[in-house]
């Protein structure tokens, strides 16, 4: 068995979900590594783009922010925020976009909080705020969310809905007036989760090697169906090689 870090498996689990031809919206950190890895592993014709307007950046070095000069070098188009978000809101390109995001809290319908813990007006902990996350979650065909698997992060009700998931269930997005699309999967340091096609509730799709479904449930603030879960395939030699040698050779993100 190969020696790998959980962070590597998380990244690859996301990369495997990217389809050829997807337009991949990502931030920095492991979401960007996942997008980069996917281009080498399973989606050679996918295009990475950033909310700052950079499309198809070469990424010779890992950027530390989506506005990093490293995203501006050797791109197809250097646009701006207005362009980038229009691509996602567009009825033509938007459905082909997969957004990879993160958050401080998530609920069973995949609603995300990246704004504040506690009362919005007197926050216990204040975070950065939406950035483009709310826009991406509102517009695009599907989203993948990275989370740390902790009880305080998987909560019955997020303190603030920054980015819409399925809202309050099957008709939530439709009632709110949002486009089709929504959360597809959640990837943590323990598991992968999807959302039921009918109920739109989160369920366990995969558990990482060495982790049991019960351990996963023990680290969540709400129950999910675990009956459909299978073990997530560990990284292949090829996948690890791509990730380590092509995507983050300096280990700025993988550590």
């Amino acid at each position, binding site marked *: 068995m190969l020696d790998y870090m959980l962070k590597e498996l998380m990244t690859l689990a996301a990369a495997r979900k990217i389809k050829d031809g997807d337009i991949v919206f990502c931030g920095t950190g492991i979401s960007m590594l996942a997008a980069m890895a996917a281009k080498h592993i399973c989606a050679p014709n996918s295009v990475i783009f950033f909310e700052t307007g950079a499309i198809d950046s070469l990424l*010779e070095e890992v950027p530390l922010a*989506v*506005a990093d*000069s490293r995203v501006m070098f050797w791109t197809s188009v250097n646009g*701006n925020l*207005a362009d980038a978000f229009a691509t996602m809101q567009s009825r033509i390109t938007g459905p082909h976009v997969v957004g990879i995001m993160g958050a401080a809290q998530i609920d069973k319908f995949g609603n995300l909080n990246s704004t504040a813990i506690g009362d919005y007006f007197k926050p216990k902990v204040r975070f950065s705020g939406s950035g483009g996350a709310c826009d991406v979650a509102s517009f695009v065909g599907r989203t993948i969310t990275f989370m740390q698997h902790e009880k305080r992060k998987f909560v019955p009700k997020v303190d603030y809905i920054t980015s819409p998931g399925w809202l309050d269930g099957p008709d939530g997005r439709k009632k709110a007036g949002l486009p089709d699309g929504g959360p597809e999967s959640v990837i943590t340091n323990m598991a992968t989760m999807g959302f039921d096609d009918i109920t739109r509730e989160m369920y366990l799709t995969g558990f990482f090697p060495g982790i049991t479904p019960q351990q996963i449930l023990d680290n969540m603030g709400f129950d999910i169906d675990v009956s459909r879960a299978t073990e997530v395939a560990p990284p292949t030699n090829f996948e690890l090689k791509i990730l380590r040698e092509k995507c983050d050779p300096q280990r700025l993100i993988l550590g």
Partner: protein
Amino acid sequence: MNISQDKTISLPEAVTKFVFSGCHLSIGGFTASRNPMAAVYEIIRQKISNIHLYAHSNGQGVDELIGAGCVSRLEIAYAGTGRFAPTCVRFKKAAQSGAIAIEDYSNYQMTLRFMAGAMGVPFLPTRSSLGTDIIEKWGFSRQMRSEDPRLPDQKLRVMDNPFGSWGDAPKLVLVPAINCDVTIIHVQKADLEGTVRMEGLSFSDVEQAKCARHLIVTCEELVSSDFLKAGPDQNQIPSFCVDAVVHIPYGAYPTACYRYYDYDPAYLNAYRKNAEDDALYNAYLEEFVYGVPDHQGLLNKIGNGRLNAIKADPRTGYAVGLDRR
């Protein structure tokens, strides 16, 4: 509006002339790139307070203005400086202590708000944020809004599509225009009259520039009009939008300016550490902001060694191999 053919002015003069206590200010850039830091530090040195600040994902500039006590109200989408501060530290403290009033939008909404101001319409529509607390929770109360003619009466409005099923969008969120008193952006190149060329991504700087009553442009290089006119497809802002041009090399330092220099990881990491502690932060302000007469003073303190380390490689536009831990 300034119609003269030479709009160059010193940074202290530009700040004194256009930035005032209580003014509505927007600053360009994004997280750790092209923040108009020289101007930010000058605003702090001039002790301008009670600023109503607008930004989308501006990181370092917003945090330093808040940290120095210049800001009373903030409309923003994202306050982070990339990996250097996933949430800006002084912003976080101010939010948690209630020291400043904050209203949250998304990045696209802030961009559309600047764009509406630039276009001369009171709002623009989007489908972003339907069903979320960005719509439900107003950082500025209805009462505060109704008492202040410089704020729209509503944070945003949800409306049914007036064209029925056209466009398959049953509901829209209307976001109100921003028309601020002054915008400050830092760019790579400008001429004496103020025509601007940004290189790499322009973020929402163009929209921010055009929505403001007054525009201060700080630039790395002052170039001839002929130089810019030889490549007009690459210029973004015409001179008639510009009130003041300030030539200030390293004007975005410690944030990055594509093709000129990278961000300074040492500065940004030390900043974050200092920002965590009030006493350390005051010492930081005393030494690096109040303790220097101007931006050149800061650069002198940083020294040529570090400035050389972040110098952009001509091929890529950033400092290849820079130690960024």
